[in-house]
């Protein structure tokens, strides 16, 4: 499973939607209903699954699915 599939899979599980419903341009809060508890779970599961560390400053910049992918891809490369 590549990074994108992992991220989409985690998002789908937490947002309780099918993987096929998730689009890159979707907003996390308005589009997927990621509230504070879900955001904490999302960040935790991303860190665990991808073995990366996400700072609060980076987390605050995540507004869309694409933002997450961009961030975790950069973190994986770094």
């Amino acid at each position, binding site marked *: 499973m590549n990074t994108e599939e992992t991220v989409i899979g985690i998002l789908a599980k937490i947002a309780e939607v099918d993987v096929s419903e998730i689009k890159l341009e979707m907003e996390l809060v308005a589009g997927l209903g990621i509230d*504070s*508890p879900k*955001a*904490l*779970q999302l*960040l*935790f599961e991303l*860190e*665990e699954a991808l073995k990366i*560390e*996400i*700072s*609060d400053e980076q*987390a605050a910049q995540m507004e869309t699915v694409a933002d997450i992918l961009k961030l975790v891809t950069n973190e994986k490369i770094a």
Partner: protein
Amino acid sequence: MPDERKPSFKAHLLAILLRSIIRLLYASWSIEIVSGQARFSELQSNVKPVLLCFWHNRMFFFSRFLEEEFVDRGMKLTQMSSQSQDGDIGMIMAKMAGAHVVRGSSNRGGAQGLRNLLRAVLRENSSTILLPDGSQGPIYKAKAGSIVLAQLAQVPLYPMSYSTEKCWRVASWDKIIIPKPFAKVLIKFGDPFEVPRKLEGEQLEEYRIKLENTLNELGME
């Protein structure tokens, strides 16, 4: 996760001094568990992670109480210390007491701190200390983070508090309580409760209020 900034020498000295003062005072206090004795015994023999909750201004006394009654008896305990210089002192003292520390607060690195606490519970089977009005208040107002942690970790919250008639109050936002020498300290353990994984609508707020009210009732003097 490792903290990159090293505490200053001064922070180490202050931590040693403060710890010595607390130990000296603790030896003089008359301590009684006036409510929730069964909960206390349960915690002493418990091997599963729990979330120990009390107000920030009770930390002075509870830091020693938790060390003597729980950590020294084998409880693995993790606490969050803020990333300030005061937090450095708290971190050093906690480590000297045998506890584990993650850095963060509600104001700086809070979410990351909560994730590290969650990791401690789920991956390391550690109980944690939660100070629901920390690290900057307002006093006696629980933040939602404690409830969210209980929700995600699926471990019970154990509210606890104490009261004492003879004490000093530090002029800080939380009015830290320092029982005077030979003071009687009356400890109360509330009923533990769990937070369901799935919460609907206002339920998160309802649990937050439940925790806040319970801690305030337990701490009434």
